[in-house]
């Protein structure tokens, strides 16, 4: 038994086998055959030179080919096996190709026509991107999906390192069905028709990308789309070799770009009597906010401070934005720094919420190149850094005792204050006394200072902290006072 010469069986979807063979020379036109397959149902078909048959289970099947009319050949018997069949998927079709020129990103959309496939199968898609100039493949990528019996639309995005405006970009796709149950040969489909994307032709010379923010140290391609002959190109003051694209369009490839100054890095193309250019902002993603500290002066408002860490080289509208988020309350506050220098600390305020002592802060730092965050959990009553005591007053009690009063702004009614009184006598001998007291609504505080010497000039200063302790306030201004004369003893 022979296999039919040049018998070629192909299937697109494992549901139908298209078998065709080369008709022996000398056979007249319109020759017809009856082809019978010895399988369970002994099915026969009348046909000319190709046959569509349902898929046969693995194994050898005897095929009888009986010429009906025409002349020159006799009945023949052949063997057909799945192994001789090729699985060549249908040529895929691109549904849509679009571009986001601002990010130089191509968006590809296609339908896998999985509904025509009998069962789950792995599919490998190969996608190619070409430039028009010489149809050079600039990107070849494989992308795997699974056929699941339904038509599924797939998306693929690709960010070109050359701005899409610089050249016409063409995209094609083909696929390979890796069906484990199929024992025949598996081959790639044909390439789809190419779809293309181009920047609307404009007589004006333009440089792309415009105002792009890139990571310092990365490579970037900048191009000049023009009808005029470009004489030279430079980044900053460094000249670059021109890469010629379509027509008069040219590009330059900048490798390992250095971090920009705050005003960005100028890239300039010169034509006969004019120049065109763009500005590239090469910088860094924000550093993790450092030394994040949150405290309160008055238990009314929390102030969080931090250090931005490494400068990003990105300023103004591209500078790092900070968001302070508190998870229990879900509230947040935002800060956009304009000028950044290494050791300048930043701050944000957060209103203290009634009946909430624990605050779980996340400080998020974000710019166009990335984001980072720091977290801090505090009990706000343990982070009180009182303000400077003010309005210090002294009143006589007697010649050896006075009352000291001061004002300490803050909502301290629920906590205890620990204050220190520095008592200086003129001969620079000084004494430190501590006093604890409950916080009061009025923020005015009073204490007695005894065991003083009569008719003596004292200088009083006060500072306060809280219990539990976090930080001392600064010392108040000095308050000088002359104690009363003692009553002469009889």
């Amino acid at each position, binding site marked *: 038994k022979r296999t039919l010469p040049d018998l070629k069986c192909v299937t697109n979807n494992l549901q139908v086998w298209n078998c065709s063979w080369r008709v022996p020379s000398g056979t007249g036109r319109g020759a017809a055959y009856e082809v019978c397959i010895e399988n369970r149902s002994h099915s026969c078909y009348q046909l000319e030179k190709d046959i569509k048959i349902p898929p046969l289970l693995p194994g050898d099947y005897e095929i009888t080919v009986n010429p009906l009319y025409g002349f020159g050949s006799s009945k023949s018997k052949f063997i057909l096996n799945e192994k001789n069949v090729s699985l060549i998927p249908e040529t895929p079709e691109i549904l849509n190709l679009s571009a986001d020129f601002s990010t130089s990103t191509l968006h590809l959309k296609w339908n896998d026509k999985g509904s025509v496939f009998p069962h789950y199968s792995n599919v490998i898609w190969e996608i190619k991107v070409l430039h028009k100039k010489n149809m050079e493949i600039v990107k070849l990528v494989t992308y795997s999906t699974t056929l699941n019996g339904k038509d599924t639309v797939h998306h693929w995005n690709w960010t070109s390192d050359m701005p899409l405006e610089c050249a016409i970009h063409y995209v094609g796709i083909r696929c390979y069905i890796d069906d484990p149950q199929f024992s025949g040969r598996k081959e790639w489909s044909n390439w789809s028709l190419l779809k293309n994307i181009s920047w609307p032709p404009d007589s004006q010379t333009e*440089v792309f990308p*415009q*105002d792009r923010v890139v990571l310092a140290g990365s490579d970037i391609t900048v191009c000049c789309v023009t009808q005029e002959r470009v004489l030279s190109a*430079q980044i*900053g*003051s460094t000249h670059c070799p021109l890469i010629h694209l379509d027509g008069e369009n040219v590009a330059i490839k900048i490798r390992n770009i250095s971090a920009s*100054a*705050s*005003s*960005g*890095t*100028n*890239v*300039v193309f*010169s034509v006969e009597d*004019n*120049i*065109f*250019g*763009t*500005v590239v902002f090469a910088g860094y993603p924000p550093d993790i906010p450092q030394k994040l500290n949150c405290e309160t002066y008055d238990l009314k408002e929390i102030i969080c401070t931090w250090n931005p860490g490494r400068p990003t080289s990105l300023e*103004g509208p591209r500078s790092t934005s900070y968001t302070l988020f508190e998870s229990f309350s879900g509230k947040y506050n935002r800060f956009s720094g304009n000028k950044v220098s290494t050791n300048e600390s930043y701050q944000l305020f957060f209103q203290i919420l009634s009946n909430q002592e624990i605050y779980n802060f996340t400080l998020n730092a974000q710019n166009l190149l990335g984001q980072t965050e720091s977290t801090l959990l505090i009990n706000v009553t343990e982070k009180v850094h009182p303000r400077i005591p003010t309005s210090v007053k002294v009143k006589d009690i007697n010649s050896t005792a006075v009352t000291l009063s001061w004002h300490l702004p803050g909502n301290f009614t629920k906590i205890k204050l620990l204050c220190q009184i520095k008592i200086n006598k003129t001969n620079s001998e000084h004494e430190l006394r501590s006093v604890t007291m409950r916080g009061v609504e009025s923020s005015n505080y009073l204490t007695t200072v005894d065991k003083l010497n009569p008719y003596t000039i004292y200088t009083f200063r006060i500072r306060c902290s809280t219990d539990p302790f976090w930080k001392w306030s600064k010392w108040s201004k000095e308050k000088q006072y002359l104690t009363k004369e003692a009553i002469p003893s009889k």
Partner: protein
Amino acid sequence: ATGKCSGKYHELLLQLQRQADLMQNPSTLLDPYIHLQGLHSPILKGSCMERLGDFPSEDVLWRLSRQDFLWTLNTTLGLFLRMLSALQQDLPKAAQQQAEMNIRGLGNNIHCMAQLLRGSSDPEAAEPTRPGPGPTPPPPSLPMLPLDTFKRKLRICEFLQGYHRFMRRAGQVLRGWGERQGRNRRHSPLRGLQRA
């Protein structure tokens, strides 16, 4: 304008000339800007030329009566001051603040000179009419700044260049007030202004 005015014409004129000379110097504003924006390569500096129409031309300035010249100078610099504050993000802070102070200082003296001329008997100085036969100066306007950064940088450079060139032209006219005797130009000499 604030501050006391000097009643001495020559003293005031000399002060105006000095201020104009200071303000026409690119090192006071344009050069720091060029440095900050990285425009110091020859090819970029070469394209930073004054754009016609940004500031009144020399021809216009020469044909104005002295009162109208002072008005044009003051109005133009007032608009430039507004532009400076709109360009804060683009300009070096120190140079911008210095330029603002220079402009305010000049404004004071413009006010004093205008007041002096109003009080003087010189028909030319006190000419009530708007600009004489010379073309009416186009009302100065702020340039529209392009969106993309590179074109914006160059446009601001042109505008600052124009400011310095305008101050040079103004300085020349002010010197013309002082120098020319008896010639039949609008800016003829002082005649009735020899007050102490």
